[in-house]
């Protein structure tokens, strides 16, 4: 199945009942699939008049307690930023998918990973985080959608899946989970009609009293702390005894993995560390994976964004270099392999 379609089908299967989107390359197949399938599955698909409208429709739908989702690609996600901030400020669960393309501006329509800063550091104004997952295969995209909806509900927060044009467009075989029927009960906060039997539930991000807002934010950061403690995840590949550890996520991790396998076969002590969660960043996992490392090579389809989290996690104790292509250009396994040889000097 195509990555974009798999994301859509997985969402339907885990009980997503509302999808609001606006077409943009390279994620359009996701919306197109939803247009075809959502109605048949008893849900709502709507092509909004803009990305801004779509994210606000998600906000409205999530307020009623249903599972809701939107998807876009880089420039469209920028337009959704305000709505995502409002959702974080209203403690609303939803899933947002970014199938990244080259930027800034309208950029290019080819795959890129240049929205890492946006997703993990500044997905809108205000004191907040969203959870960010970074799958690297079509199967993992399916699994991540299920996880994303569950975690969004558990922590009452927007969750982003940060994919890219390559993952969205490529074809791989997938297995889907059975459709989910036991969805979490949200009746203690959702605005789903009080029928004069209880107090109103108010979904709101506006606070006229500063100390009240401060208390609200502090409570939210307690939840963020729990997320950081419990929800980090990473794939560790051949890092045992590795003198060089490559850090990469998503599609660039697939490229790096090919290069690592080739180098290992030649006796070069190299491994791959692939964060599956970008926020929270898997700090302890990276420390453990780099315990024998003399060098780190960070590989991204950007000018170097995740590298700052890598350096923070390792407290800048391990020399860290960067290799990346940007603007929609995909690094090749051969290029990464050359970098490995440059740093390690080849097999000893």
């Amino acid at each position, binding site marked *: 199945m195509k990555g974009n379609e798999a994301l859509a089908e997985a969402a339907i299967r885990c009980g997503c009942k509302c999808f609001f989107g606006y077409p943009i390359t390279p994620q359009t197949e996701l919306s197109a699939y939803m247009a075809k399938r959502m109605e048949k599955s008893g849900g709502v698909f709507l092509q909004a008049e803009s990305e801004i409208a779509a994210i606000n429709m998600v906000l409205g739908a999530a307020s009623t307690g249903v599972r809701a989702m939107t998807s876009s690609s880089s420039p469209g996600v920028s337009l959704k930023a305000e709505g995502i901030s409002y959702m974080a400020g209203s403690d609303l669960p939803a899933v947002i998918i970014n199938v990244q393309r080259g930027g800034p501006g309208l*950029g290019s329509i080819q795959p890129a990973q240049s929205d890492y800063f946006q997703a993990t550091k500044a997905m809108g104004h205000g004191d907040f985080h969203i959870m960010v997952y970074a799958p690297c295969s079509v199967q993992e995209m399916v699994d991540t959608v299920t996880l994303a909806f569950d975690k969004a509900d558990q922590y009452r927060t927007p969750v982003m899946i940060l994919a890219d044009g390559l993952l969205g467009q490529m074809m791989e075989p997938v297995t889907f989970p059975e459709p989910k029927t036991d969805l979490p009960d949200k009746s203690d906060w959702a605005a789903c009609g009080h029928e004069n039997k209880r107090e109103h539930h108010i979904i709101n991000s506006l606070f006229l009293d500063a100390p009240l807002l401060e208390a609200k934010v502090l409570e939210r950061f307690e939840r963020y702390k729990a997320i950081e403690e419990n929800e980090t995840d990473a794939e560790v590949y051949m890092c045992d005894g590795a003198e060089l550890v490559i850090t990469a996520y998503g599609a660039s991790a697939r490229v790096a993995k090919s290069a690592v396998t080739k180098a290992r076969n030649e006796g070069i002590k190299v491994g791959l560390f692939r964060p599956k969660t970008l926020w929270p960043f898997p700090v302890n996992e990276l420390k453990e994976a780099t315990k024998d490392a003399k060098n780190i090579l960070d590989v991204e389809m950007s000018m170097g964004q995740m590298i700052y989290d890598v350096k923070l996690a390792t407290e800048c104790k391990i020399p860290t270099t960067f290799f990346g292509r940007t603007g929609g250009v995909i690094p090749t396994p051969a290029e990464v392999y050359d970098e490995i040889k440059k740093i390690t000097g080849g097999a000893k």
Partner: protein
Amino acid sequence: MKKITIITGHYGSGKTNFAVNQAIKLAQKGEKVTIVDFDIVNPYFRTADFVELFKENGVTLAASMYANTSLDIPAISFDIERMAYEPGYLIIDVGGDDAGAIGLGRYAEALSQYKDDLDMLYIINCYRYLTKDPSEALELMYEIEEVSKMKHTGIINNSNLGRETTEETVLHSIDYAQDIVEKAKLPLVGTVYRDDLCLSIPNGIPVKVYVKTVWED
């Protein structure tokens, strides 16, 4: 093989890989071949990706001047009528679904004069999610015919699961294909399989996998 072959199907069904294989095979037999990248819908995984392969094999590529750029607009900047008129084989790789075949309708009348020397083949893959059911595959086939104002002349069974395709994967699809060709009242032109599989099936078409991701060997 007829002079003109038009290849349609669900996006991701394997149209491009089949088209590229046919073009290379003809060229290696010393035939003059032109392959047309008629995908005006999706800028990823398209015929125009194989410029170097075509050059090595002497295949002429006709693609939009905007193919593989960031200008994501449905544009055709080549002359299909002239290519159909000139000697040599012409393989037209159409974009996915009915949306991808709309542009073909523009040439329906011009191509109708070649109808005795033209095949329009519909590619099916029983492992594609939206065409898993024979009725869904047929529905899409008729949608493509409606927008392209042309009728298919045959069906190609290209059922596969990418790298995970085994002999069993292909054999399992035979009934599905048979069901579709009977309902469509069209011939099954062939069943495609990766050339390293040990298969002996009627009308088998062994192919190489050209369409793949950067990290695949």
